[in-house]
């Protein structure tokens, strides 16, 4: 009887029902793929029949593991070198992101820098824009004659040919990823700095600590947890970034794990790719565990409150103008200049020739001529483009609706059930997709849903598969927003409704959601934006009928149709920025609320 009563009490609470439901569904959608991924590393796939001698499809084998890890020189080329490249790129880009983002965060929140408002708005752009935006801009600027095409703007303007190491490979990849993720660091570290009790600095100042010492001994240690979690996020994001190394690394055969993943999954040895995906997941999980261990060890750091006065704004004195101008120039170079290069590149006929007579609107509104790109019409007259754009929008809206709603509910249930094993299980499950490299995630879903499983019919080539994979992949963003929203809301607010006998759905709709509207809506905004600019996740799942705009861009780029690619990129950036701004203005939802400070 007691068990029955306990069970009754358990299911009376809505958050328990949500938790149980999510635990089951998410286990199926994240853990099951993980097992299926691991299984895939041990079996023979159809395309591998030739290489694994005497085996039949679906036979168990250690062939892939042997080849990837133990095959001397070939393992080095296939796996160890790309792994080492990945680690280096992720490390460098994390450092760049943290140093740059942290510096800007400090300047904006704690100094009397000029142009604060402009900088704080525009500095976020690189994160809102697709990651390859900067990569393409880099190529537009600095490409050399290596790939046979025309050199970029930089060479055209100065006559200096860029060396390979500068134009392609590790160096630009690290820089571009670092710039792309520095808004992350800016938002996380800035949030802490903004909420940090100014008294902590004042106390040190009165005890005769110098400015530098306050920064080193007070500010830095206090933002350390934020720096660490930025490091975790940037490192694992860089590790699973595909587009940037694909754009910048390919010309010099600079391989990282994701590009190898794409080659092997798309090629003859998917088994290798699955192993690499497992390795990436293991690294990501290890970083996450390390971070949690570290943060847990010295908790209560980030919960710093107190009346903040703006009295501790540091006067930069004679550095004020130089610092402000340099930062302004940087922001313009990183966030605005790339767009200008897209515009320019999309209007010139023969690449590399920037003289006035070479400008044409052909690639925007042209009919399509036999001698240019196989008769492909300009983007604005291109029915494939409109189809892809429509697909992208449709997909992003649906994904954001699903992910935002599920994430909001997950946030509610996780916070309400805080402290229970079930809640932390669901919390981890909801965050887990973040650690799965997008492309590997796509690959698993491809193999999982290619044939009917349980009650789900075969989804291969269907739009539903894209929705499913997008929803699960972006759930971490939405659940973070939901958790943040709920943590800021005292439980008594809901309890006051419970006492009055207001049913749960009404409490959610009339009390909880309206109060934390901006935070919850941010949980819809992030998946939308991420989905609009996602490439790696969809690139393996796309069939011609449901092509989205990013895969279209990738195809044009692979074909070397530079002008179309630039034009489409400009369109994507414009759409994402406009959506972000409009949604932000109307609802107050914003990226930084979603990332959570």
């Amino acid at each position, binding site marked *: 009887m007691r068990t029955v009563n306990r069970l009754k009490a358990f299911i009376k609470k809505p958050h328990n029902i949500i938790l149980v439901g999510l635990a089951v569904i998410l286990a199926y959608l994240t853990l099951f793929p993980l097992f299926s991924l691991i299984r895939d590393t041990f079996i023979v796939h159809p395309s591998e029949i030739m290489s694994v001698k005497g085996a039949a499809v679906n036979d168990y084998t250690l062939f892939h593991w042997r080849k990837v890890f133990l095959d001397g020189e070939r393992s080095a080329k296939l796996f160890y070198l790309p792994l080492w490249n990945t680690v280096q790129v992720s490390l460098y880009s994390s450092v760049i992101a943290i140093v740059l983002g942290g510096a800007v965060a400090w300047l904006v929140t704690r100094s009397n820098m000029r142009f604060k408002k402009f900088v704080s708005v525009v500095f976020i752009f690189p994160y809102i824009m697709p990651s390859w935006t900067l990569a393409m801009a880099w190529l537009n600027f600095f490409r050399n004659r290596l790939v046979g095409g025309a050199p970029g703007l930089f060479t055209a303007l100065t006559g200096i040919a860029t060396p390979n190491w500068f134009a392609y490979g590790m160096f630009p990849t690290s820089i571009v990823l670092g710039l792309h993720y520095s808004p992350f660091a800016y938002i996380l570290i800035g949030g802490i700095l903004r909420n940090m009790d100014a008294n902590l600095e004042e*106390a*040190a100042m009165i005890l005769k600590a110098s400015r530098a010492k306050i920064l080193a001994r007070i500010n830095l*240690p206090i933002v350390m947890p934020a720096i660490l979690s930025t490091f975790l996020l940037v490192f694992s994001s860089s590790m699973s970034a595909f587009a940037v190394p694909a754009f910048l690394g390919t010309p010099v055969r600079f391989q990282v794990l994701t590009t190898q993943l794409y080659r092997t999954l798309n090629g003859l040895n998917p088994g290798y790719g699955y192993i690499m995906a497992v390795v990436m997941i293991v690294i990501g999980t290890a970083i996450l565990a390390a971070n949690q261990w570290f943060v847990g060890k010295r908790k209560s750091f980030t919960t*710093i409150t107190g009346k903040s006065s703006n009295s501790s704004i540091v006067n930069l004195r004679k550095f004020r103008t130089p610092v402000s101008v340099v930062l302004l120039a940087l922001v313009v170079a990183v966030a605005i200049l790339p767009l200008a290069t897209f515009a320019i590149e999309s209007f010139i006929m023969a690449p590399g020739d920037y003289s006035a007579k070479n400008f044409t609107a052909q690639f925007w509104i042209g009919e399509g001529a036999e001698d240019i790109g196989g008769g492909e019409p300009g983007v604005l007259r291109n029915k494939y483009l409109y189809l892809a754009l429509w697909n992208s929008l449709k997909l992003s809206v649906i994904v954001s609706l699903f992910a935002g709603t599920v994430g909001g509910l997950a946030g509610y249930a996780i916070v309400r059930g805080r402290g229970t094993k079930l809640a932390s299980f669901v919390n981890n499950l909801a965050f887990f997709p973040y650690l799965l490299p997008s492309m590997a995630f796509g690959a698993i879903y491809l193999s999982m849903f290619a044939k009917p499983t349980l009650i789900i019919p075969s989804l291969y080539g269907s739009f539903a598969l894209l929705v499913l994979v997008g929803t699960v992949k972006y759930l971490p963003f939405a659940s973070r927003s939901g958790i943040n929203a709920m943590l800021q809301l005292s439980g008594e607010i809901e309890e006051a409704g419970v006492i009055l006998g207001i049913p749960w759905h009404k409490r959610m709709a009339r009390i909880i959601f309206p109060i934390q509207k901006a935070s919850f809506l941010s949980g819809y905004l992030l998946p939308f934006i991420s989905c609009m600019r996602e490439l790696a996740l969809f690139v393996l799942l796309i069939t011609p009928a449901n092509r989205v705009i990013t895969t279209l861009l990738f195809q044009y780029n692979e074909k070397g149709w530079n002008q179309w690619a630039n034009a489409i990129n400009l369109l994507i950036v414009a759409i994402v920025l406009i959506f972000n701004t409009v949604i932000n203005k109307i609802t107050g939802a914003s990226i930084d609320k979603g990332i959570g400070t």
Partner: protein
Amino acid sequence: MPQIQLNNITKRFGKFVAVDKLNLVIGDGDFVTLLGPSGCGKTTTLRMIAGLETPTEGEIYIDGRLVFSSEKGIDIAPDKRDVGFLFQNYALWPHMTVYQNIAFGLENLKWPKDKIRARVSELLAMLKIVPFEKRYPSELSGGQQQRVAIARTLATGPKVLLLDEPLSNLDAKLRTEMRAELKRLHMETDSTFVYVTHDQLEAMTLSTAICLMKEGLLQQYEAPMKVYAGPSNAFVADFVGSPTINFVETSGNNVNLDEIKAEAPGMRLLFTPVSGSLTLRRDHPVAIGVRPENIRLGEPEGLSGRIYSTLPSGMETIVKIQVGDTQLTSVVFGSVDYPLDSPITVSFAGDACLLFDRETGEKLASGSVRIIP
């Protein structure tokens, strides 16, 4: 020796005037409280003395040295003013242990390690926090954090100690204990204390002088008992003392040379000034202020009233009595209980009753109040 002098200090935040032409001299070794309701400018004043806030106008001297002057463009940085500051929320650095928190200021003074060790040990012992040396602030209770904050502030031996509502985050019992300790600390350290509080009891019990402020304006600056007995206006009289002073709102007329006759529903009173004679205009709106301890109950020939409520607390009992339109509060020693609405007589004792102008709030006189039968 450290004397703090504020000349015509004004602080404006935009259009809002937080502190208005404040003149204040805090003597060496004083324990001065800046007292007032929230938003009266007391914390701003303290922060201006420390150099954490920049005054809009005026001059500040600490220990004879000009540390701020709006005219001469002097603004000495907080770290060069040789003051200690105790923050309301303690502002302990969360990532440092108790030891590191206390030692930080000494490190900045480039003390040798062994001397720092000795000094910190001394403070840990003095504030009775020796067992917590290696703990982080989050592992301490509010009272312990408070002691660490005091130790940190005292470590460098500042001659001027600025305290911003240091007890307001503690529970009532701890607050009483810490009050006693602060008073001892003042004696032992032989330094000048400037103490911000909105708690009049704290101000009364601790300080050598109270500086009472309201909306950025100085109301009165005197020793606590003088402020209590001779408030300069009705606001001060009302703010200081618990339970608060009784005001009988009447209109007054001069009678018999220097006496004032005051009438209100249910009472006819005669006020005899002891502070000198006083001329009122006809039916001048005045208020008679009587401290609760000066209201006597149950004596013959008193005003007749009814018991409104009785609040015994053991050592004393607060009795509220309704007389006509006026409600009076009296404090009676010991535990007494009156039935609600029972009749009782009320009379006024002593010559420390006060007469205020109801239009300006100014105190007009002090004296005794008799009841006209």
